[in-house]
């Protein structure tokens, strides 16, 4: 966006706002993972937004909507525009979308930072983007009414045109006048029954630029004088550079600088190829102090986690006396579940471009954490946050990796720009990205369940071992009484446990030099696998049909039941299948939405083949059904990759996997038929970016059990 296009009032607002934002990142409370619950608890009504911050109407009638959130594939580019357009009444064909700059005007409606995560974008903006549209429409109507000397009530809006009697004016013609009017103190939103856009399947607005190569990602930033840098980073977590010799690297044609930064040594060159050649020449010369993590081994960690899981941990939730009830139960099942560190492995490897001067720092990157990155960059640059501008580019996948409280890929690039004195685009190679940490943590669960004579659970004791995502970050205050909610979400709040008089969930939070971070569906990536596999084990022990068993346990959970029944019906649960096939079921609530999945599998040798996934979602009011379908398809694939293939292993502190031949992800040839069904609902909107992921692994594991009798309790699922 060009500065000229901002009106004066807004520019003032941006300046004061950014200054006020400084320091907010410290000691900050992030409700990203359980924001839904908190919002449901009620909060003060927010003031009406400033429409100028979110909307520009040009004389030609084009409407540019500024996105407070990042488009990373999840479809906010289209969905939030739909919300605004619903109220504005503009011509959909004239809608353009841009990422907003980093500024307080674009803070999340629930937290004082600009971010995209926790599957919150659509529901948290449900009111604000509609209010902006309604405010702007009201101003345009008032401008027309004043010009024509009629009452506002005599004006109606049709597709970007205001009409009163035989007078007509386009939004474009009225925008200048409307801008000068005072904003109304309140605004009436369209009743649900009159919606024309919300709930209507709508194609993505960003397709044309994404199928022609015109869409610009962080990797695509170019300007005169921009150099490309690669950083040789620590071979093991926490290692420090002792010394290096840059002579060979500097001899590579095109290499302009070799500089040390806190994360390693950067080679800055005219283009990627020279930077890579320079880094190859540099790497063998770096002496590292490996520190304490040079012996880290994920197999040893499994053993350590298993031992920890046998001991009492910090209490995360519970009721009654689980131990006593277990002792009294007629049957007891004990099971251990586990899974590895995972890399987000977005298709676009991390990158960040920085242009630094004495008084300004400009950043171009795909980020989910604009104002956090802004504050962190300011600190490194020795500037104030308002001197740092953040240009959000399209994200070539985010999945949580680009929402880092440590702002690792941003601060590093600022360091490289500062040390080299050059504008730089720091590009991570695939291997850099995969070995760079901030993983979904390795986990271990120990579960004991006591069954009553009726075959239903009467006591449940559950111990989770999982590194904390928040510990040591500005979000540490999330941890209460030793419990990081992200480690146990999906377990402590499980409807299965809520129905039991005796249950206990405990947590061990081991520390490790391996950095960890939220990954698409966060704690639910493992808790849903464990809970839904365990329920299946109980159903089998009780000689009950997995669907009937769940129906009994979820009898008081109408939204769980709704998706469960819909998915089962559409999948033909209980009907005969071809020989060598079986179905498995899972149901799980996360991020304010409810999802059930039926997977149909076969086994060929040691390979698990998924043929069909039938998924039902209840996400409350559905803004863009087409977008929800796409997110559920994508969530299934992300979940299947983790269920069938993905795993990071560390040996002697070194991450063993570097690229996609070692770190498996689902491929086209393995893609099952995915069928998505949306439960019609008038409930408050829930999230859709993440809730499609958690059910994939347990549905497949349960199907494999139904087919083979083998209970697979470790991710990725392996038959041998």
């Amino acid at each position: 966006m060009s500065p000229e296009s901002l009106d004066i009032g807004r520019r003032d607002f941006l300046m004061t706002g950014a200054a006020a934002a400084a320091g907010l990142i410290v000691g900050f409370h992030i409700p990203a993972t359980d924001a839904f619950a908190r919002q449901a608890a009620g909060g003060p009504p927010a003031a009406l937004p400033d429409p100028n911050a979110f909307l520009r109407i040009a004389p030609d009638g084009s409407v540019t909507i500024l996105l407070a959130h990042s488009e990373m594939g999840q479809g906010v580019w289209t969905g939030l525009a739909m919300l605004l357009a619903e109220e504005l009444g503009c011509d959909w064909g004239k809608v353009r979308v841009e990422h907003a700059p980093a500024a307080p005007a674009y803070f999340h409606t629930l937290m004082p930072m600009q971010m995209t995560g926790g599957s919150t974008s659509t529901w948290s903006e449900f009111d604000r983007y509609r209010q902006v549209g309604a405010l702007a429409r009201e101003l345009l109507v008032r401008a027309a009414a004043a010009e024509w000397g009629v009452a506002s009530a005599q004006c109606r809006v049709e597709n970007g045109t205001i009409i009163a009697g035989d007078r007509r004016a386009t939004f474009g013609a009225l925008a200048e006048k409307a801008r000068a009017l005072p904003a109304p103190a309140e605004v009436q939103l369209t009743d649900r029954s009159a919606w024309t856009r919300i709930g209507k399947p709508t194609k993505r607005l960003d397709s044309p630029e994404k199928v022609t190569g015109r869409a610009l990602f962080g990797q695509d930033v170019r300007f005169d004088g921009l150099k490309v840098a690669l950083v040789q980073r620590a071979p093991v977590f926490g290692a420090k550079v002792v010394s290096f010799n840059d002579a060979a690297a500097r001899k590579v044609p095109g290499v302009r600088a070799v500089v040390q930064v806190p994360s390693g040594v950067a080679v800055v060159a005219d283009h990627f190829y020279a930077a890579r050649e320079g880094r190859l020449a540099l790497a063998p010369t770096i002496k590292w102090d490996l520190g304490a993590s040079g012996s880290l081994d994920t197999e040893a960690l499994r053993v350590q986690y298993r031992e920890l899981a046998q001991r009492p941990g910090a209490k995360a939730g519970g009721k009654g006396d689980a131990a006593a009830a277990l002792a009294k139960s007629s049957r007891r099942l004990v099971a251990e579940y586990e899974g590895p560190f995972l890399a987000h492995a977005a298709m676009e490897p991390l990158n960040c471009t920085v242009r630094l001067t004495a008084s300004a720092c400009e950043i171009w990157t795909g980020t989910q954490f604009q104002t956090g990155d802004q504050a962190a960059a300011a600190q490194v640059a020795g500037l104030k946050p308002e001197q740092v501008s953040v240009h959000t580019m399209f994200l070539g996948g985010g999945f949580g990796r680009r929402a880092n409280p440590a702002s690792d890929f941003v601060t590093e690039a600022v360091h490289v720009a500062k040390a080299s004195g050059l504008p730089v685009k720091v590009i991570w190679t695939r291997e850099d990205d995969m070995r760079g940490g901030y993983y979904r943590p390795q986990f271990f669960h120990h579960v004991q369940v006591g069954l009553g004579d009726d075959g239903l659970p009467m006591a449940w004791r559950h111990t989770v071992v999982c590194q904390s995502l928040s510990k040591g970050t500005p979000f540490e205050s999330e941890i209460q009484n030793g419990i990081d909610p992200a480690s146990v979400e999906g377990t402590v709040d499980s409807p299965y446990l809520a129905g039991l008089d005796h249950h206990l969930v405990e947590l061990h939070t081991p520390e490790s030099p391996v950095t960890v971070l939220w990954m698409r569906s966060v704690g639910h990536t493992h808790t849903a696998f464990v809970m839904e596999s365990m329920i299946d084990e109980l159903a089998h022990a009780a000689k009950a049909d997995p669907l009937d068993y769940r129906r009994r346990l979820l009898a008081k959970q109408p939204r769980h039941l709704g998706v469960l029944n819909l998915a089962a019906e559409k999948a033909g649960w209980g009907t005969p299948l071809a020989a060598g096939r079986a179905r498995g079921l899972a149901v799980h609530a996360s991020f304010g939405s409810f999802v059930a999945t039926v997977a149909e599998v076969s086994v060929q040798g040691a390979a698990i083949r998924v043929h069909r996934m039938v998924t039902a979602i209840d996400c409350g009011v559905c803004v863009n059904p087409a977008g929800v379908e796409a997110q559920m398809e994508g969530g299934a694939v992300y979940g299947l990759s983790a269920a069938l293939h993905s795993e990071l292993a560390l040996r002697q502190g070194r991450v063993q996997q570097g690229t996609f031949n070692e770190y498996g992800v689902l491929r086209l040839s393995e893609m099952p038929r995915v069928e998505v069904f949306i439960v019609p609902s008038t409930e408050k909107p829930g999230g859709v970016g993440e809730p499609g992921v958690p059910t994939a692994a347990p549905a497949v594991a349960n199907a494999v059990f139904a087919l083979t009798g083998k209970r697979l309790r470790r991710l990725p699922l392996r038959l041998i």
Partner: protein
Amino acid sequence: MKLTVNGKTYEVDIPDSMPLLWVLRDVLGLTGTKFGCGVAQCGACTVHLDGQAVRSCITPVRAVGSRPVTTIEGLSADGSHPVQRAWTEVDVVQCGFCQPGQVMAAAALLRQKPRPTDADIDAALEGNLCRCGTYQRVRAAVHRAARMMER
């Protein structure tokens, strides 16, 4: 060194071992072709060399010679190639990063096999990874593009 890209001839002064991908992106400024892995493991860098789909990240520019290169920017002037139209109609893209490679791989397939089966599509696009999970729509869009091209 001379290179013909999207019908235009460029004179470039670069090491002949430089992968075509980086010549396109960093020298010619054609950033539609993406860097996803650098070792032919993801397909994001797929371009056409003499009409065939190749991984530009492992194609040294000296191996290109006088053969014409087509990138996503040159597939059509305005996004009107049947594959691009089908992609938009089926609403394939999510983050979009892998899509130039998917589109180029699909266009090359359809040139060789105007009526591909699912198995043909799977085989041809097996190496084009997508983490957003658009695969089902990729298949559907290739079939749709095939029908468009028949007409």
